[in-house]
């Protein structure tokens, strides 16, 4: 685990959103944004996705592929995203890390 690069919160959220959406072949900018908005209630700027998303593509956690030609894009293909195996491992690691961090902490009180 040495020199591991911990994903940022944004990256993690985007990864999770893609993981969730890629089954229906519908993980792309618009859906990712609306999914995150639905889950967290935070309205991201439209462009705000592409910074972290671009980084994830560059790291090789996410890859893009093309859909079938779609009428809504005027018969053009849509570029969709899915996790690579490296991305999945990364997500798991983060999850594990989160769990490890949460273990043995004194109970928190407050509104949940």
């Amino acid at each position, binding site marked *: 685990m040495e020199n591991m690069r911990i994903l940022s919160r944004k990256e993690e959220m985007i990864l999770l959103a893609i993981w969730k959406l890629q089954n229906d072949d519908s993980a*792309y*900018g*618009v859906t990712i*944004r609306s999914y995150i908005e639905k889950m967290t209630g935070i309205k991201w*700027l*439209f*462009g705000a996705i*592409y*910074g972290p*998303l*671009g980084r994830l*593509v*560059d790291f090789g956690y996410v890859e*893009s592929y093309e859909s079938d030609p779609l009428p*809504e*894009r005027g018969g*053009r293909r*849509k*570029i969709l995203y899915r996790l690579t195996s490296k991305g999945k491992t990364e997500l798991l690691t983060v999850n594990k890390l989160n769990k490890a961090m949460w273990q043995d902490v004194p109970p928190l009180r407050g509104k949940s």
Partner: protein
Amino acid sequence: MDTQKKITVKHRILGRLLRSSVREPALQDFDEQLAQIKRCRGPLIATLWLCVQVFSLIPSLLKDSVYWSAAMLKNYFKIALRNIRRHKGYSFINIAGLAIGMACTLLILLWIQDELSFDRFHENGSNIYRIIVEDEQGMQSAGTCPIPLAPHLKQTYPEILDSTRFCNGFQKFLVEFDEKVYSEEIGIVDPSFLTMFTFPLLKGDPQTALEDPYSLIMTEKMAKKYFGSDDPIGKVIRILSSRKQTISFTVTGILEDIPRHSHLQFQIFLPFQALDEMVWWVRDFEKWSDWSYFTYILTKPGISIPELNRKITDLVGQNDEGDDLTSKFFLQQLAKIHLYSHFKYDLAGHGDIRTIYIFAIVAAFILLIACANFMNLSTARFSNRSKEVGLRKTIGAHRAQLVKQFLGESMFFVLIALIVALILIKLSLPLFNQLTGKPLNLNLADLSFLLSLVAVIFFTGSMAGCYPAIFLSAFQPADVLKGTSRAFSKGVFFRKFLVVFQFSLSIIIIICTTIVYNQLTFVRNKKLGFDKDNMIHLPLSGTILANYDVIGNELLSNPHISAVAASDQLLTQIFRASTGAKLEGDVVCEYTSINFLTVDFHFFDTFDMKLSEGRSFSEEFPTDADEAVIINQTLAKILGEENLIGKKLYNYSESRTRQIIGIVEDFHFESLHSQVKPLMIVAQSSSDYKFMYVKIGPGAISSSISFLKNTWKKYSSGNPFEYHFLDQIIDQLYASEKRMGKIFLNFAFLAIFISCLGLFGLASFSAEQRTKEIGIRRVLGASAGNIIYALTVDFSKWVLAANVIAWPIAYFTMQKWLQNFAFKTDMGLWVFAMSAAASLTIALITVGYQSVKAALANPADSLRYE
């Protein structure tokens, strides 16, 4: 589709901002989201959303690029500072020259801005015009119009909303309240004056303040002068009219002080109805031949000026009793009055647009000289940095980056120079104000001034930086680093060109200044045709006038007072004129403006004027007082007949005839800008005299004046004692040239100084470059003299070349300027020879110091290292 277009623009922005791996999908997604919003919530919201999205992206992405360029900037900065520190001398010369140049330019800009800002404060300013008159020859001759014109215009033409007349009586009036008596300039205006112009009243109602014929308004300053802290409203003030009657006026309003930027500088205003009581020549308000009134009109916006010009001319033509009206009327915009009035009959104190142009050119010259200087030294200095360029290029700098670096560096220099310049301006402003007679100050918060500062920085910075930037960034790194490129020699020609250029400009300024001074000296020494030295003149009015003969005799009893005379107008300010004259028996009247002066019998003797024919007025001929006229040679020439003495001359304006008894040699009663105008001189009863002239002996000026004062006091019944020397008044005719000459002289010095700074820097630089060469020459047996010769002859050549370029330019410019004067000096070859000698001497001294230093250095020191 409009939105489609907008989207493509935004695409381009997004495309630039996003990283390449996601750019394409992002753009597609973006379109989809946009379409969706448009579908659900309408195109307006969609467009709004689009804008919000795009613009909120920018800051975060900018941060990135700023961060990286900041890192580079820091390096550029460091290098720039290191260079300044390494070449302290050059940097100082460089910055000092530029700072002085910029300070000069900015000072001149301040002055120009001030001149251009006259009469801009009136709310209706853009629709207010003054009516001016152009005579037959197309000369704009007057700002004054017939007396009934203003009300008639308003009644006749609906596009003229309002009109007002303005008359100052062509004199000062004695204004009296309690014990306080001052002589004041008074404006006599229609009541609409207050509503047309933006001269707000602090007290009183602008609609009614000038309704009553015996009402008066004055400025706050004036009210303080007369009433102190008392409430001025309702106070009664007495004014001595030019009919010698004392009239009481009641103060009905207090004006805010008149802004400095107004061409109307009056402190006291009277209603126009009071005019016939105040001014001696007005009897009839409907007399179309009385042209003494400045007329202002307020028009509807967007009217056609040429059409209105024609309409006004028509209206005067219909009413003028004369058979043929040769004058044409024109509208002059309010804001143009200050700079575009060169009329014979006009209010004093106007500026001149030509002066503005001349100053703008001088400012540009000085800035160009400073820039040339800066470029020169920069290229010299930068050429030492070819290695740096090579290294940067090798490491991976683009050419564009290098250009930016050098431009930025020169802008940085300019910025430092600008700060120094601002300090210089702050320090020299009192001096400059003294020179120009304006209370200017440096207002940094003024937007237009700030903008001009930015413009100056960019102009100077890019002018000075562009050559090194383009020239240096083009180096091939391999050549430079191998040392095969001869960087310095490449810039030599360019630098010489700059030296020639800046010296040419300096020489032009030197020549112009010399010629301006020559002309002024010429004007001062020119024989005017009458004796102006030790001549005192005093205004005559009231009890002084009544006792004029007694006073005259009493004054003559003093041995130092040699003559006393009187006239109705000041000898140098003759404004009365007849519109025509003819010899009795002639059919055709000479319609030309003939000046008209009334004098007493001693006038010609007092001024020592020579008569070329006939005799002067004499007490032996009592009829002289009413029926004789003396004309000047110019008028005699116009009348065109021999043997004029004894002929009868018909004066068109007065409709009466007089006998010519003498012809006086032409004397200059106007400034030497113009030829001598035709003049009629008559001797009339003393009630018309306005001025008394007293000729005093040269040795006893102060005692004579105190004698004069005592005599005056005896008869004046409280009128203040005011006297002037005639030669000072004549000097004032050339005040603007004199002031210009002074300003020019100062700037000429500065221009030369800046050029020399540059030359000095360049000379020391080239001496430094050639240290080894000089060392070797010395070792091989060259004498110090040889070396000094080798180093200086080069520069002298270029300075001489600059002279050759400058001469024709200066010659033609000054020839044009001298055309303003009807009487002018020759330019003379010596002016040009002198400028050559002066520039060469200055250049040699500047270069010589460095050359001597280099030549006398021990060659062992310069050669030791290799």
